[in-house]
């Protein structure tokens, strides 16, 4: 009950935030929050697979495929991103099936699965760069301006519209998580995660579930990619595809805890805050130092806080409670 009340208060606070006076920091705060919402959404999408042991290191593929599809369709054909998203989701789902189906049939799991997805993610990135004639290569692509606010083009001058859009997106992501949590799929996937052969022997259609959850995860990730692309009006193979962004997503989720509803959000908020802090700290001096520290912290976190912050915090609280009792 207390958690619900707290959640409601938080939600109201977030909803009202764009109207709170912030001494000029508002634009920046909104900007950071939009990023947190969108990337938490994407992180949650990844966690749908991650929590069941399907460790994908190539979610950049879905991000990139999604974002580039909608952007290219808009830039070249004027197709509204709303419909572009449909096409993007279909393509991404297709890729998800191509990767998930054989991996499931041939029991490619763990590190091997990670490597396969890693390679696929890189393939998408390198393909985008290679086909520079129409994708813009490593220089990226700007989303063609619609000239003013347009719901159809999903472009708005006022950042606050994006803020509320991202907030809704984030909440929708939490909703999907809840839905999966409560569904048959969850128990089935957990059974599969524990012992695939046993699960299969009780009639659980292992491949169907694995492919299904991968498709769902991929589709949501593509949507997240499109949202991000529309927000910053720019797509680039390094920010939206490849191992860099894929690892960042995974790190954020593992840091926050991939088994809980708010884990991905907590982790994403922390990593974005960290990245911003480092960026401000180092600015343009010591190019590469911010990333170096990021990488170092990543390694240290993994070694010393394997359950993530959320998980470790929960453990601590649980221990305190049992001691007190």
């Amino acid at each position, binding site marked *: 009950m207390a958690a619900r009340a707290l959640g409601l208060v938080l939600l109201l606070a977030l909803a009202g935030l764009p109207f709170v006076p912030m001494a000029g920091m508002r634009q920046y705060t909104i900007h950071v929050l939009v990023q947190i919402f969108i990337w938490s959404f994407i992180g949650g999408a990844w966690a749908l697979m*991650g929590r069941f*042991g399907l*460790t994908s*290191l190539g979610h950049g593929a879905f991000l990139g495929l999604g974002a580039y599809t909608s952007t290219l369709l808009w830039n070249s054909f004027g197709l509204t991103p709303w419909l572009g998203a449909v096409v993007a989701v279909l393509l991404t789902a297709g890729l998800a099936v*191509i*990767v998930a*189906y*054989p*991996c499931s049939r*041939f029991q*490619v799991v*763990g*590190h*091997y699965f*990670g*490597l*396969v997805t*890693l*390679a*696929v993610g*890189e*393939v998408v990135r*390198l*393909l985008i760069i*290679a*086909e*520079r004639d129409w994708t813009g290569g490593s220089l990226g692509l700007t989303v063609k301006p619609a000239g003013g606010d347009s719901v159809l083009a999903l472009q708005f001058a006022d950042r606050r519209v994006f803020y509320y859009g991202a907030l809704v997106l984030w909440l929708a992501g939490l909703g999907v998580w809840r839905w999966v949590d409560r569904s048959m799929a969850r128990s089935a996937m957990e059974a599969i995660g524990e012992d695939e052969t046993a699960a299969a022997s009780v009639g659980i259609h292992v491949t169907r579930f694995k492919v299904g959850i991968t498709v769902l995860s991929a589709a949501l990730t593509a949507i997240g990619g499109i949202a991000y692309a529309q927000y910053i009006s720019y797509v680039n193979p390094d920010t939206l595809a*490849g*191992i*860099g962004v894929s*690892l960042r997503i*995974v*790190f954020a989720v*593992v840091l926050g805890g*991939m088994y809980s509803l708010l884990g991905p959000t907590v982790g994403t908020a922390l990593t974005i805050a960290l990245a911003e802090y480092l960026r401000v700290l180092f600015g343009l001096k*010591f*190019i*590469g*130092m*911010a*990333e*170096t520290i*990021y*990488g*170092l912290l*990543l*390694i240290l976190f*993994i*070694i010393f806080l*394997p359950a993530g912050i959320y998980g470790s915090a929960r453990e601590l609280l649980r221990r305190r409670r049992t001691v007190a009792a």
Partner: protein
Amino acid sequence: MIDPVFLAEAAINGLLLGGVLALLALGLNLIFGVIDIVWIAYVDLVMLCMYAVYFVVQVYGWPIWVGGLVSVALGALLGIAVHVLIISPILTSAPVNQLLATGGLLFFLQSFATFLWTTDHRSVRLTLPRLEILDMPISVARLIAFALAIVAMLGLYLFLTRTYIGTAIRAVSQDREAMALMGANPQRVYVVTSAVGGAMAGLAAALLIIQYAVHPFFGAAFGPITFMICVLGGLGNMVGAFVASFIMSEVIAVSGVIWSTEMGYVIAFVVFIVMIFVRPGGILARRG
């Protein structure tokens, strides 16, 4: 119509490149086969060693073979360091954590290199004789690299089959627990394996720096190809990796000359995706 001479030249170049790629793929596979962990940052270790050769040879003027020795030694040391500092603490962690650890290492190495040496490309300039076989210009550097790679792989084969510790390494990759029951301290076997894998990276670095320029994101260029080769050959499968290296390099080289370098990569990727769908266990994997 493509001039068959160009095709032949491309095929030869593909072969020569394949040799060095095989070194990378085998090193990665060796470590995975024994320790069960994929070093995502493997090619970035190669990048570090390439810088080492650059500094030793280009900046300090030592002969190339000294640079090579330094590179191999550095590679072995880095291998041991990575295992002891990063891998050992997480040997029993969940796969996702293990992958993130070597992933974090990748970030760290790439950005640290950027910080130390900027993104400028550095190369080692060797004066080598020009060589022409049947009207085709062949890079002598590439030829030497290929020859040395083959020699190294033969050495690895002999090490793994004829020496005690080599056989022990193969045994651990087949059954880690059983090997513990033979009195072998698994940690020691892992350290040796990491050293060997690292040394291979070091050798590959020396062979690559004479053909390509190094920069902090070298791993971003050669990493994906290496991973694809490992998957194509079947992760952990040494023979598969060897074969897959040449298949990949030939596809890239030949498609590159028929269409363009970019297309070469595109086709290699398509081959890769198709192979994943048809045989994700690797080309030499047994069905089902």
